[in-house]
């Protein structure tokens, strides 16, 4: 077997110097003669062999360099609170994007099925709102102007809300992610219901009537900032070792386990990250609408988020973004119909979209592809059809 393989390697050597160099190593197994397709697709090393550390650094800093100034410009251009309905809707769409992209980490990348996003959102929203209400009027960082102090407080509260939701995610994920996949759906659903029932009975946060008087700190620019963060984090996550492990879990859990992937750990990690951003979205929502009510965090809210992820295509970040925007605008666009019939058709539309998509196009709009793949596939010859987005 061996001489034959080496001969094959030599024969190719004339055309391909790298293959030659590899095949000359004496104890290489046969399969390693060619680099695996995944390695071809790994952007930087294959595309630019002579890329210096500086260009790689520059490339990875590019989203930050473009994104943050853009958000600052938007923040400067838009008034702090706009009464325009379109701007209001854009904020809601942004919050939904954060939700959908974060749920995509669990449902899309990892292939688990969480139905309790509303619960984590509620945790984050209530914790953040409680912090800003408690701290808000009383303390101000002395050396900062009021608006910046408020902004900083809101940022801290958002992080705290996200952190609380992440801890909740850890508590829920640890027991349920150890067992068969579809239990997670029912456990997360149940957990979200427990959260809601607890909030309804907690008079300290307004009980069933809801928590009012939350400062309107979440401006469009904050929403944009978090959209930016969640998209960047999930894109980078997917390209990392962790992301590869998550995809492996999605494709075949047993095989992944056999390859040495600690499936439970990765699943729990993904779940915690996802819950963190759900909490952030909850914090944003609370400070955007200035009211939080347990009615906002029912099972239906979770389903809406799931619908966004599924419509966009499980595993596709850009799909989740577009579907979240689409499904936020759709009910508003259908408002004339709603006024005409006097019926809330939103749930009918969501649910029938879910069923029809699953029956007719189970991959969603994008499948697991991304918008940025389109450009790349035109630039480079296509490699390995089944390969996922980097």
């Amino acid at each position, binding site marked *: 077997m061996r001489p034959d393989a080496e001969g094959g390697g030599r024969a190719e050597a004339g055309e391909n110097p790298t293959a030659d160099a590899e095949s000359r190593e004496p104890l290489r197994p046969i399969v390693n003669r060619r680099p695996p397709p995944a390695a071809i697709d790994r952007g930087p090393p294959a595309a630019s062999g002579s890329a210096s550390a500086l260009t790689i650094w520059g490339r990875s800093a590019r989203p930050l360099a473009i994104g943050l100034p853009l958000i600052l410009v938007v923040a400067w251009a838009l008034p702090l609170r706009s009464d325009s309905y379109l701007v209001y809707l854009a904020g809601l769409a942004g919050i939904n994007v954060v939700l959908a992209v974060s749920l995509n980490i669990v449902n899309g990348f990892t*292939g688990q*099925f969480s*139905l309790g996003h509303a619960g984590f959102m509620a945790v984050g929203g209530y914790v953040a709102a409680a912090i800003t209400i408690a701290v808000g009027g009383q303390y101000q960082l002395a050396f900062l102007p009021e608006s910046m102090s408020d902004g900083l407080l809101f940022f801290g509260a958002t992080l705290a809300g996200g952190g609380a939701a992440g801890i909740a995610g850890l508590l*829920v994920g640890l*027991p*349920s992610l*150890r*067992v*068969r*996949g*579809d*239990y997670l*759906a*029912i*456990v997360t*659903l*149940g*957990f979200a*219901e*427990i959260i809601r*029932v*607890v909030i*309804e*009975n907690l008079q300290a946060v307004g009980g069933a009537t809801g928590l009012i008087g939350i400062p309107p700190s979440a401006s469009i620019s904050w929403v944009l900032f978090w959209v930016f963060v969640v998209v960047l984090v999930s894109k980078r996550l997917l390209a990392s070792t962790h992301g590869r492990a998550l995809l492996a879990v999605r494709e075949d859990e*047993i*095989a992944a386990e056999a390859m040495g992937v600690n499936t439970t750990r990765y699943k729990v990690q993904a779940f915690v990250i996802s819950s963190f951003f759900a909490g952030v979205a909850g914090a944003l929502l609370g400070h955007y609408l200035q009211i939080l009510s347990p009615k906002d965090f029912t*099972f*239906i809210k979770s*389903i809406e988020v*799931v619908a966004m992820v*599924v419509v966009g295509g*499980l595993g596709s970040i850009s799909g989740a973004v577009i579907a979240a925007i689409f499904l936020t605008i759709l009910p508003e666009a259908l408002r004339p119909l709603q006024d005409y019939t*006097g*019926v809330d058709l939103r*749930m*009918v539309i*969501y*649910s*029938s*979209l*879910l*069923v029809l998509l*699953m*029956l007719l196009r*189970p991959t969603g709009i994008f499948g697991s592809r991304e918008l940025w793949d389109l450009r790349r596939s035109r630039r480079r010859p296509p490699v390995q059809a089944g390969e996922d987005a980097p």
Partner: protein
Amino acid sequence: MTEFVQHLINGLSLGAVYALIALGYTMVYGVLQLINFAHSEVFMLGAFAGFYSSRWLPKFREEPRFLLILLIAMAFCALVGFLIERVAYRPLRDKPRLNALITAIGISMLIQAVGQLPWFMGPSPQFFPTLLANGPLVEVGGVSVTRLQAITFVAAVVLMIALHRLIFHTRLGTAMRAVSFDGKVAALMGINPDRVIAFTFILGSALAAAAGILVGMGYPRIEPMMGLMLGLKAFVAAVLGGIGNLKGAMAGGILIGMIEALVVGYGTSSYRDAVAFGILILVLVLKPSGLFGRVVTEKV
């Protein structure tokens, strides 16, 4: 002590209903490994089928009328269950399980949402008519059993015995167990899995319809969203007993019913919905295969 026993008896009749619904979940999970979320909506439709048929049926003797309404609702829901399987689940049989799960949720939400439209059931609760007169049946030492509780329990038990005989003493039942054990091998043995799966849905849906009527009589406010919570709790019951296991579903249902009755009796009723899920998480932590379930090793 009397109070405790009283709560247990209240829980027993509620638990029998949970058990009826849980059987549907567990049977479908047994043959398809699918959490049939739409099952709770079949249950809800069963209650409404009873509601509408009792409005249209002329009045005659109470007991046969009740049985007739029960049969109508069961037949209607059997049809609904059959259609759901045919339209929504069968095309996805060889797709990833996640797709079927999402479809199940979608179907469930669709039935709820359509049911809430004013030209169907409407969003506001309806009042289930009294099909059988209620009243105290026996009272022993301060513990009373109402007529309705007895009827609910007896009806549920009769149905469960019938199901048990059907599954363990008929050819069709044997086929069901074979498909549940290993669908591919069962197909090689000359069993038509499609027919068996359809029959499983019919059976489970009929039981859910009966549960719907029994719940309607006991808690007369019925609405399109009523299935959600009850269905989830019944599912928890199925998991508690070990999903895929019939006796487990019965025991789990009765256990959940009793625990819930005790929580409502001694604690606060506002947390009654949270308790079932607390139990679920405990079960998953301590014994994921449930009380009666066997540990299944996943094979490649």
